[in-house]
């Protein structure tokens, strides 16, 4: 199977080939990969792809995963409809 067919981020449809090309282009920080590929910015907020991106980075840069700064996790952690935050007079 070609790297172009391996999906790393399902929410934003990012392939392994795209992640590797960005790293080859000098983007070696997970935060910058996130911004330029949208990897991890979809509905799952990186739950699946976050780890995969770190593993690809570790393989390509030779740095262990433990030494790579993972991307920041932001609230609300799971997507929550706006109405849940608003409440009503009865609450």
């Amino acid at each position, binding site marked *: 199977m070609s790297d172009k067919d391996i999906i790393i981020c399902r929410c934003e449809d990012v392939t392994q080939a795209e992640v590797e090309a960005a790293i080859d282009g000098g983007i070696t920080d997970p935060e910058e990969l996130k911004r330029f590929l949208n990897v991890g910015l979809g509905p799952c907020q990186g739950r699946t792809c976050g780890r995969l991106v770190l593993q690809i980075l570790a393989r390509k840069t030779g740095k262990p995963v433990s030494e790579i700064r993972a991307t920041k996790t932001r609230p609300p952690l799971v997507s929550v409809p*706006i109405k849940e935050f608003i409440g009503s007079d009865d609450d």
Partner: protein
Amino acid sequence: MTKSYDAIIIGGGIIGTATGYYLSKQGLTVLLLEKDYLTAGSTGRCITGIRQQFSTPATIKTAMRSVALFSRMEEELGRDVEWTNSGYIFLAHDEQKVETFKKTVALQKQFGLDVDYLSAEECKKIVPMLNIDGLLGGTWCPSDGQASPFFVVQAYAENMVKNGCEIIRGDEVTGITVKSGRVESVTTASGAVYGAPMIVNAAGPWAREVGRMAGVELEVEPERHEALITEGVAYMNIPMLVDYRKEGGYFVQRTTGQFIGCYTPEHQVKGRDTGSTLEFIAEMARRMCRLIPALEDVAILRQWSGSYSMTPDGSPIVDETSVAGFFCSVGMSGHGFMLGPALGESLAGYMVNKTWPFDMSEFAFGRSFGAKEDLA
């Protein structure tokens, strides 16, 4: 031996990369130094809006030039930057704002901007989902728009490198050497020294500290602004809505279908904290639904904050400083992404030819800070 360049830029956001690109286009060899990763400062935390509705001549002209540059960015830089003319509506809920808006629209029209003052009913025609309770009117500029800050910076950075320039990430400038009143070189955290006859401070919220390295005091103060983004939903035709009420805010539907927005905190929060708060999510949710009730079913995905680098008058400082060869493009006061392309082009032109495209004395270094921008 010290490696030398025609110019060194400190900061890898919209200001640094745009200035670098336009310098490279004129054949200069440029080194851009970014202490973290590209867009790590204010640019990557902004809410993507690009407007031309301002209240002073130089800002209006700069913003109009930026829109012209955004419009042909994909063609010039070879990357889709998600630019679209989705427009901006400034909403007036009190008589004072009506007066201000009528005055600013008249000024903007003098420069050829396609802007109009509309009644509340006319606003509703443009945004059928808008709740117009209490609305007196609004200003509508259909050529205002939005783009992805990430893709714009990426496009400028790629083209800089293509033009023979260098970008170094993850190495912080720790010192600037000045000799006989002129810049000479920078020193970085890794111990490297790079020389150049021209150095640009494009350090956003760190601009004051970078200025001091060369002995230049810049009146730039970072302030915290929070923001959020929702999941993508079907297109609802919502341009950037700017609500100036005490419990107002501003938000837009992105080309991705997501809503992105923020509000100005009631009390200024100084500093560079980029953390998150649940309080903001609840408050912003309420404010968004007050304007567009249909948003209540849209799910919030992510909340963060970023820095506005404020000057006392709300306009940037773009000029050569009191140290020869030391330039600054700082104090964007929340408008860096939208003004960035045109400011980059103007400053690059000034550094090479010593001429500005039009009177930019409003942005001069060492000006006395007078009246504040009306459409801050």
